[in-house]
């Protein structure tokens, strides 16, 4: 489907790692939207916040509470990283819902970069904080001794599968939603006068997609918090 095609902005259509493409444009727009909301929107620092400042404060409080509740109070040091990931994923998802736009988060390459950033930084953090004690995450001392090697293998596998599920969940949800809208749009093109039904369905799916766009950003962030908690407190 052409809405998922990566096309370079300049040149004869050949794509290199350095060529600016529509992915670049929409990523920059997500960054601009974040800056507009969080920096420009809160510039006045009004005691009685306006609408924009209210939204910014709500999101800030939301993510901050999530980090504190899920990952623990000592994880608030890493709040900037998590807030950045949340705002980027949320605005990429929401901007992708604009007609004729490009959803950067529907590409596994983008989400895998995000998920690998989280995975590598969390693993390094665990080893820096606890040294080899971080491996206690895989050696569950609460389980009976004969079971522990088996559980260690399972835990190790589930640990390395994390970046896969973390990235494909986001990309799959975004891609499936947009593909669904596209399929309904194709129905509307075929049916003629009866196209009212698919158009109503598109409106409903679109509303659902707005919800999914936010929830997937939320899920991405909360899983980051869960992984961070495992790195900070590897003992179960």
């Amino acid at each position, binding site marked *: 489907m052409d809405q998922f095609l990566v096309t370079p902005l300049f040149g004869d259509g050949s794509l290199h790692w350095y060529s600016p493409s529509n992915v670049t444009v929409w990523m920059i727009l997500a960054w601009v939207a974040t800056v507009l909301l969080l920096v420009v929107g809160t510039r006045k620092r009004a005691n009685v916040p306006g609408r924009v400042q209210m939204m910014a404060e709500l999101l800030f409080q939301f993510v901050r509470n999530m980090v504190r509740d899920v990952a623990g109070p000592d994880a608030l040091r890493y709040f900037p990283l998590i807030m950045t990931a949340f705002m980027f994923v949320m605005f990429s998802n929401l901007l992708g819902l604009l007609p004729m736009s490009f959803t950067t988060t529907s590409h596994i390459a983008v989400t895998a970069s995000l998920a690998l950033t989280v995975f590598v930084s969390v693993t390094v953090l665990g080893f820096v904080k606890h040294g080899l004690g971080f491996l206690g995450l895989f050696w569950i001392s609460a389980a009976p001794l004969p079971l522990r090697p088996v559980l260690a293998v399972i835990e190790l596998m589930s640990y390395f599968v994390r970046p896969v*599920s973390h990235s494909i969940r986001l990309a*799959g949800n975004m891609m499936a939603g947009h593909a669904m809208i596209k399929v309904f749009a194709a129905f509307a093109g075929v049916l003629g006068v009866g196209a009212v039904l698919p158009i109503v369905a598109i409106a409903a799916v679109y509303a659902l997609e707005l919800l999914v766009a936010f929830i997937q950003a939320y899920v991405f962030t*909360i899983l980051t918090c869960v992984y961070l908690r495992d790195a900070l407190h590897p003992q179960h």
Partner: protein
Amino acid sequence: MEGNIEAMGALIGAGLACTGMGGAAIGVGLVAGNYLSGALRNPSAAASQTAMLFIGIAFAEAFGIFSFLVALLLMFAL
């Protein structure tokens, strides 16, 4: 009948792999349904457990995603 029997097998396999998503759908439904029944029994504790709800849904959903991944691999990577 003519055609590439290997591609046909891969596409059939991709379709079969997608049945795994049904299992994930059951799992997500169980998580959400049990959350709702628990929340209706004790509404005051419900708000503090929404994070657990989404973590549970995310983990249940992960296995549906793996079947989706297998389908994608069969269609595009083989």
